[in-house]
């Protein structure tokens, strides 16, 4: 991980946020290792510590396969850390000899003085906070999804790699309550892993049938899917050299290729957008936060 900005814009594959079956999870990453045009892969459980043991058995093999394929591997910590089980998970991860992406302040004490990354679940809205985190050892940050283009640019005053979420459902909230469990009359303790039924999150609609959000256990994601394909030139002008693609149940290898080709200039803006629409026909796109609008809005590219 270098503080110096690479000329080329890199692609990061964010962690799988959903509860996929362990074999599905493993096979997904094995294919990423072999085929995906991403530079970095973030692994680990961000949403619910009860899920970590399920696919944990495959984690070492997946990590070494990704490394063997030339990918940088980063491990993400939990977003909401409450009980001893959560804390143990964070401590164990921070103790490992690996690059760690902190998604809760509980990890920052462990990571102090050593290079690490900051995930999108830590509130970083300004250069004061970012500078402090850099002084604590942070070298890269995936910015929170609600930051506008202007804020993202302002944060460039701190010498740290800025990464922006460019594809995937937006993480909107975390809670101590599991809504997947609640929707079935269960609680977090008795959840029966209700969240494994929805590979892209559970669709939530208003009483008028309008799509609103997707529930992923204790996490709430946007219904709409971030798509900054039309904004990549603007992002580069603002000094952003790293984009994050957050896994959805779509062909992520193909999604990564669209972004790679667009960034390399081998695919025109209009065509790249059409390809992405074909790849994710059920996911409406949004870039509202980036354009200082409501997060569900879609602002067409300005020429």
């Amino acid at each position, binding site marked *: 991980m270098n503080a110096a900005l690479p000329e080329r814009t890199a692609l990061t594959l964010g962690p799988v946020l959903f509860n996929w079956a362990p074999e599905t999870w493993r096979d997904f990453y094995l294919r990423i290792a072999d085929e995906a045009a991403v530079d970095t892969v973030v692994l680990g459980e961000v949403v619910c510590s009860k899920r970590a043991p399920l696919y944990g058995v495959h984690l070492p093999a997946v990590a070494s396969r990704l490394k063997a394929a030339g990918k940088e591997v980063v491990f993400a910590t939990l977003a909401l*850390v409450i009980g001893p089980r959560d804390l143990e998970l964070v401590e164990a991860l921070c103790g490992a000899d690996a690059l760690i992406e902190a998604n809760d302040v509980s990890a920052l*004490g*462990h990571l102090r003085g050593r290079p690490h990354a900051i995930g999108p679940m830590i509130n970083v809205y300004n250069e004061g906070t970012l500078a402090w985190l850099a002084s604590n050892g942070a070298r890269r940050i995936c910015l929170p999804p609600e930051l506008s283009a202007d804020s993202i640019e302002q944060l460039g005053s701190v010498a740290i790699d800025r990464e922006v979420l460019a594809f995937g459902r937006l993480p909107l909230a*975390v809670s101590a309550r599991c809504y997947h469990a609640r929707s079935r009359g269960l*609680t977090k303790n008795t959840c029966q892993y209700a969240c494994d039924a929805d590979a892209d999150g559970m*669709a939530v609609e208003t009483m008028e049938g309008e799509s609103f959000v997707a529930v992923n256990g204790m996490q709430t994601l946007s219904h709409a899917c971030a798509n900054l394909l039309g904004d990549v030139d603007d992002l580069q002008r603002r000094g952003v050299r790293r984009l994050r693609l957050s896994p959805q149940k779509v062909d992520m290898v193909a999604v990564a290729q669209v972004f790679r080709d667009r960034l390399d200039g081998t695919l025109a803006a209009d065509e790249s957008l059409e390809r992405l629409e074909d790849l994710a026909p059920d996911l409406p796109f949004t870039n509202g936060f980036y354009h200082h609008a409501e997060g569900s809005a879609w602002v067409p590219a300005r020429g």
Partner: protein
Amino acid sequence: MNAIDRKVQPMELVCPAGTPAALRTAVDAGADSVYVGFRDETNARNFPGLNFSRPELEAGIAYAHAKGAKVLVAINTYPRAGDMGPWHRAVADAAALGADAVILADMGLCAHTAEHHPELRRHLSVQASASNPAAIRFYQAAFGVKRVVLPRVLTVDQIRALNREIEVETEVFVFGGLCTMAEGRCVLSGYVTGISPNKDGACSPASHVRYEDQGDKLVARLGGMCVDQFPTGSPAGYPTLCKGRYVTGNDDKAAYLFEEPTSLSMIEHLPALQAAGVRALKIEGRQRGRAYVGRVVQAFREAVDDVAAGLPPNARDLMALAEGGRGTEGAYRKAWQ
């Protein structure tokens, strides 16, 4: 053992004030501390016509101090990139006006305050979502915070365990509006309206609320989106996004997926909180009227003193003041999660 033998130091009662009138009401009703904000986006209750100008805060602090009460200034939104001036000025003015503490959420602002106003007492806002000993120890070590307002994600047992592992004081919410999501980590409002608690200090803002009478029902909308519907003649609620009714694939019927429109009410559980080592109790509601503030503060004053004297708290019915007329213990009870 009689009641006098069991008397311990009462927990500090921290009460909301959205206006000078509410501050005076809260102090007169027995608040140990009153928390307030400046009239701008630097605090998480940035509602139209609410909060304090600098002269109002000066007068409010004088009033509170004359009656032995403290004033805590909430500067608990996240400063804007490239425009941190308003937040830095808020901290400087709170210090200059003699505030007893500032309540901060942003790490950068914590660092700024520790550096430029080291003698100004720092509390960590609930908006910082410090939910475990490691996070709290980090804020203490890095920024010297003296008290943490705990996010509403912990059970009473977890709070007791937490207090055994940390040195700083803890403050917990005991009454009022209930965030269903972890505080400071929710952008639902921003997703629907573009205005969010972290950036703008407002959630589900009134400016985006619309009620639409469709004859047989009233539709409550936020940013044009239907949050709930109410049949004619039944009570209508404010369209806060996490208290709305939605439809999921599991059930075609609309349900309160996140939380029912209830308020937090912990007055009956004050002895358990005291036993768990909680130092201060917080009442939510800077946006509520002075009549509300007066009633709730008075009820809690009596209850806190009773508990300190080893008596059961008089849980007189505060529910008339609660949202939807119902109360919940929220995450303090494990089955809620």
